[in-house]
């Protein structure tokens, strides 16, 4: 789920397609579509239809997803918290002697 949200946060104005997200996140349709449904129900994503002429394109319009404006800060916080949670523990730095060398 985090990888899907990250894709939306990279460019919040960019609409995304399900198959495109499968390619970017490397997740199969069976994993991705339930995530999209969950995020849409939670109000993080809104769905819409692609603005094309089906006759000219020879195919029906695809469904697009956008991240909602309200979700962007919350999503950033959640991703930051997640990354903090899995951050490897930091090590303390060595100290230099003001007079030169190491204390």
């Amino acid at each position: 789920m985090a990888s899907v949200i990250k894709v939306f946060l990279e460019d919040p104005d960019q609409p995304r397609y399900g198959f495109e997200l499968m390619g970017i996140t490397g997740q199969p349709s069976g994993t991705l579509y339930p995530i999209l449904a969950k995020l849409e129900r939670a109000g993080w994503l809104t769905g819409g239809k692609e603005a094309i002429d089906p006759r000219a394109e020879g195919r029906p319009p695809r469904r697009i997803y956008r991240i909602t404006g309200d979700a962007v800060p919350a999503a950033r916080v959640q991703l930051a918290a997640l990354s903090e949670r899995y951050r490897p523990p930091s090590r303390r730095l060595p100290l230099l002697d003001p007079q030169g060398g190491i204390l």
Partner: protein
Amino acid sequence: MTAWAWAALCFIGAALISAVGDLVSEEIRGWLDLLPRCILRLAAARLDADQRSTVYKDEWLPELCHVLRGAESRPITRLIRGVTFAIGLLIAARRIAREISRDVPAPPIPLALPNPLALPAALALPALPRPVVKPAGKSFESFYAYYYPRLTKFLQVQARDVSVAEEIAQDAMLHAYDRWDDLLTYERPDSWVFKMAIKMLRGLEARARLQPRSSEDSDNELGIKTGTDENLSDLRLDLAAALKTLPRRQAEVISLRFFSDLTLAETAKLLGLTESTARYCQRAGLAKLRQKLDPGSGQAPSLLRGA
């Protein structure tokens, strides 16, 4: 029957067999092309009746058309992609149906963070990357935002104490603020602030040396508390031991470059060296550190690698 008649018969037979073979392969191709759609229809059958038009017709089918068209001239790729896409949805159809049909308001998305206390704790820590954009404008605020953390880090390495480092950094920034209009005319205001901070630190050290030492800080020339020694990690001990052996200049260059995140040019300017001298000091210092920290393999730990 003559030989000519036999030859004609064979020719007609071969043509017939080839035509029938073509027809059969065409038929199979048509059926295989239908396979992803059939699986998708099975998946749609697992949805609730009222969801079929919105989910199947508006989303799944157009997406499958796109998948199939993307590989129009490659029948095997098309078949594999289409079938994989449709089977994934067939398996997940019930889950998707449950997600959509729930009328209750959705719970907040936890993103694998079951503990709600984890969020404030994480927020208190610098989880987001520090801004590395240098202050381009002439405002003191942007200068402060960029250089204050670097100055503090540098002083912390030098003074061994966070509170002393912060105090000196704040004083130096305060001086800079007082004469900000003058500093703007300088080529490098940051250099001025760092030099000012170093002078203040040296002054503090000199005053500490003049004061009579008490017994408990007899091993600490500056009278600055060093309460973090118990928490030293192995790496820090190793690095500390290794850095100890370096000449002062090399240790200072490495401290500024890697612990204060300054560029080579900034480091050189700050220490009053030419860039090539600073580069030499850095290279020589790092080579010595590598040898000290891992003499067997000649490899540096990741901190020093790629520097």
